[in-house]
């Protein structure tokens, strides 16, 4: 049993010869020649610390885990001693989830680390993003359930009319953000990371100054610098944000009002999540989407189904293929007005008059005032250009030594956990190990009810790649309707879809729409990260009855041509 286990694991490992030498590394080297994994790509596993920014609980656990490493490190403070001639080994500008993840990993690697924050620790994710929005979505999920009379009746439950207290909901979101922020701050403090307050500016190679705007500034030197300044909500031209009736996600998360009718500009995951919150709290929603289809960016098939569940039956309508050219806040007794033009012909299409408008058109990098000109770096649409190792590229196309940029500011993948993974990858590099992050293994999730999650390529992307590189792809799908646990919860709506190579069993992408999809995706993302093939993972056992069987079914329904014999495949008499 044991031998077969390690065999199937190692045979699928894409880990290259540069592996940091775990128990499986010798085995993986042996099998390396037989796998077709993209060489030189190695995924950096996200560890618990890296995720802590986006997790609500387990802080106590986190600290307990980290303390031992604190003792092991040679330095008195727990933070490392800096290299000669530098104040710090590593200075991180921006204490969001990316910076935090990098800082924790740097301390573990024995680097003397400082983190500069001009606002509050936690950045967008903790204060104005994933964290408070999850609090609101937790409320909306419950409201939706309690309000769904049919759903309750089918359980045999009787619930009197559910109501909510807006301030109570808003407080829940705020309290959660505060709690997570404190957790983050404490985790860094306890490790001895220097938290420097002020706006950080790069003044030259390996030199950073920080301080309050207009106040005194301090110059520090660092062997390596990571820029992790993140992003702010993107507000298109012509949109006047007043923070009351025309708002961005920053304002919306405070939930100061629940408008009767709100227009959400942009139907990406931010817009979708807010539509879920607002409709559950009684608002009616109109989406304005510039592209021809709602939910661009999602796999089209998933998008179609999601629209059938998340949009059509709810109090939501939409205008697609239109730009909102001018949005004026409500004033003098007039409602919020939104002028729409056709995205293609540019002709005026319609004018909406509503109670509020939420601008969810994406996020813009926050890279101003970083002193990039001092190191000859030009941003591209605000983003800092980097190579695949997050090394900053200057205007002549050359790498800037010792300067890295992670997270939303480089625009590679604007997700909190991606930033953290990039930060860890950079720390690996500066502490002497080459490392490249495989972005295709980073999952993403949209926390609507039910949730949407994805990892890797969408079907059109996979088809394009397959055509270019000359391989075949297949699609496997399973339905939540066939899952016992989902049916027990009366949540049979949803599908899981996998795009894979039938010739070698490589997973190219997995998309899930259904109950707890965000939690289910990791089996697939880990498989992609570790290079596990379908023919191997399909023999992994899942507890019955659980939602994870949806993914189990997905793997099992795939038809891989190369029949890899495996010891587990033989039935074992019990």
């Amino acid at each position, binding site marked *: 049993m044991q031998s077969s286990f390690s065999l199937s694991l190692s045979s699928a490992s894409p880990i290259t010869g540069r592996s940091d030498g775990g128990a499986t590394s010798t085995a993986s080297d042996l099998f390396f020649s037989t796998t077709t994994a993209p060489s030189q790509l190695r995924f950096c596993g996200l560890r618990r610390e890296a995720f802590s920014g986006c997790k609500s609980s387990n802080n106590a656990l986190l600290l307990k885990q980290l303390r031992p490493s604190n003792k092991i490190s040679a330095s008195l403070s727990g933070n490392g001693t800096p290299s000669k001639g530098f104040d710090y080994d590593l200075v991180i500008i921006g204490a969001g989830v990316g910076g935090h993840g990098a800082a924790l990993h740097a301390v573990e690697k024995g680097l003397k680390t400082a983190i500069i924050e001009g606002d509050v620790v936690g950045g967008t994710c903790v204060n104005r993003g994933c964290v408070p929005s999850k609090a609101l979505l937790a409320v909306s999920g419950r409201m939706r359930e309690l309000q769904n009379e049919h759903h309750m009746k089918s359980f045999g439950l009787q619930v009197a009319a559910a109501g909510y207290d807006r301030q109570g909901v808003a407080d829940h979101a705020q309290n959660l953000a505060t709690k997570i922020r404190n957790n983050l701050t404490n985790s860094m403090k306890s490790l001895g990371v220097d938290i420097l307050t002020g706006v950080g500016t790069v003044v030259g190679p390996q030199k950073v100054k920080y301080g309050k705007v207009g106040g005194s500034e301090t110059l520090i030197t660092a062997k390596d610098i990571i820029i992790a300044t993140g992003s702010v909500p993107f507000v298109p031209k012509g949109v006047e944000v007043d923070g009351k009736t025309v708002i961005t996600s920053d304002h919306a998360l405070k939930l100061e009002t629940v408008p009767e009718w709100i227009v959400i500009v942009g139907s990406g995951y931010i817009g979708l999540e807010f539509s879920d919150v607002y409709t559950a709290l009684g608002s009616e929603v109109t989406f304005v989407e510039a592209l021809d289809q709602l939910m661009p960016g999602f796999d089209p098939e998933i998008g179609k*189904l999601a629209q059938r569940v998340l949009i059509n039956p709810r109090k939501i309508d939409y205008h697609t293929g239109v730009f909102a050219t001018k949005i004026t806040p409500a004033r003098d007794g007039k409602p919020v007005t939104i002028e729409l033009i056709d995205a293609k012909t540019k002709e005026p299409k319609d004018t909406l008059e509503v109670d509020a408008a939420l601008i969810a058109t994406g996020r813009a990098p926050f890279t101003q005032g970083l002193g990039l000109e001092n190191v000859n770096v030009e941003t591209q649409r605000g983003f800092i250009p980097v190579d695949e190792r997050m090394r900053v590229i200057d205007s002549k196309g050359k790498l800037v030594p010792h300067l890295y940029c992670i997270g939303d500011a480089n625009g590679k993948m604007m997700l909190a956990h991606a930033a953290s993974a990039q930060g860890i990858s950079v720390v690996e590099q500066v502490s002497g190990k080459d490392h490249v992050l495989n972005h295709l293994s980073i999952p993403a999730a949209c926390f609507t009810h039910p949730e949407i999650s994805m990892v890797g390529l969408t079907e059109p992307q996979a088809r394009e790649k397959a055509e270019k590189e000359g391989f075949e792809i*297949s*699609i496997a*799908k*399973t*339905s939540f*309707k*066939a899952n016992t646990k989902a049916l027990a919860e009366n949540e049979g709506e949803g599908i899981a879809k996998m795009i894979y190579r039938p010739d070698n069993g490589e997973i190219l992408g997995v998309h899930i729409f259904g109950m707890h999809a965000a939690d289910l995706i990791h089996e697939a993302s880990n498989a992609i990260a570790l290079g596990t093939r379908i023919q191997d993972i399909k023999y992994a056992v899942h507890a019955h009855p659980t939602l994870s069987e949806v993914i189990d*079914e997905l793997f099992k329904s795939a038809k891989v041509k190369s029949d890899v014999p495996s010891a587990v495949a033989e*039935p074992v008499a019990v």
Partner: protein
Amino acid sequence: MKINEFGNASVDIIVSSISLVRTSPCGRLEHLLPRRPTILTPEKKSLAPLICLLRNRSKQSMMAQLLNSSFTPTSPCLRRQSMPSLTQPTSRKLQIQAKIREIFMPALSSTMTEGKIVSWVKSEGDKLSKGESVVVVESDKADMDVETFYDGYLAAIMVEEGGVAAVGSAIALLAETEDEIAQATSKAKEQSSSLSLSAAPSSPPPVETKIPDFVPVATVVKPATVTAVASTHPASDRGKRIVASPYAKKLAKELNIDLSGVVGSGPMGRIVAKDVEVAVVAGAAVAEPTKPPSVAPGIELGSVVPFTTMQGAVSRNMVESLGVPTFRVGYTITTDALDALYKKIKPKGVTMTALLAKATALALAKHPVVNSSCRDGKSFTYNSSINIAVAVAIDGGLITPVLQNADKVDIYSLSRKWKELVDKARAKQLQPQEYSTGTFTLSNLGMFGVDRFDAILPPGTGAIMAVGASEPTVVATKDGRIGMKSQMQVNVTADHRVIYGADLAQFLETLAKIIEDPKDLTF
């Protein structure tokens, strides 16, 4: 999921036995079946009992498996049939001609008896090639793509999206060549009448006939809305554009209501869902001329009858009313004087309803709070006019024609107006502002001998008065004598968020005074 579902009886039944085994929760059946797909040719049908056994063992999970496995494009074409149908595989085949084929509702699971068309992947006239997905069908278990087994053209769709059809019934026609499309279309029309019986919810013909019914109403109402309603949305370009909230639009589409005829009561005159529901209560009487009478004579006992749109709207309104904290105050009013007045002016065409409405309106004029309404729970509106809605039973339904400005219009005009409204209601020609603008509602069951009852407050209004029958009653007077007086009981249900007990008591006192001394009713 791909299912080939064209009526070709010679298709072998292929069962992917791997999938049968997989989910059996106990895992004991692992060795029973071979791991390769088994082809159930007629010779191999002896395997059927085994499958049958499996089915009984863990029917649900097995079925789940069947569905899952066929999601993969490489999976064999399944033509799954429930066990009973194995014995009569050819009987349900309805091949018309060699060149025009029917696309059937496939049996996607053994328990499936009917399927819902989720969406048509192809539209009429599209060229289909073998193996392409044509339609997405929702069964009791999953949504699946149904693919074509032949090349050809999708000539006619017989069950629209959202429609339900029984397993084995034709849902579309496939023509082999372009020339045959027309032929197939006419065929489809022939069949659609019989089909609509089995696919009632989707049947397009009723929808079509509804539209001509409603269009005249819409065109007439449009200008009327603008002039009659002060609260027309400022953004509506003087009525050119309709401003309605997303849910209102959705409801209107669902309930087949023309929004141009709906009066908006939301912020800045915007049409909100409630307005559509109000409109549908009466509109349904307009839009569904045939349904109610057919129900009355032949009610099938024990049958489950889905709500008509009107019943649905009433139901929603009634449930919504539970969100309003109401209370009730009753009052006994002596009607001798009113009866006398009624007898006197009846020849001039005055009706009792008009008299009661008039009396109520005059009392409301003195107690504007009882004529107010609270919509958002944060504020309330003193309505500028007193519009008395009177509940009228009609064709098994309910409608509330409105006597507008009942306090200002004289009793004779009011009576004429009432007759006109009742006639219109019977002819189903009420226009939205004639049934949706009430600020206070009267419900009178006195004519049936009901002496007292209480009414449910229609959402969006402040109060409703339930009026019982006026009956001769033995009454003791203060001077110790016993006499006979005609008395009726009224019972007002009101929204306690804005109307308090004292308000109602004073209003009823005023009303009683007016009715007991009705000279003001005739000016």
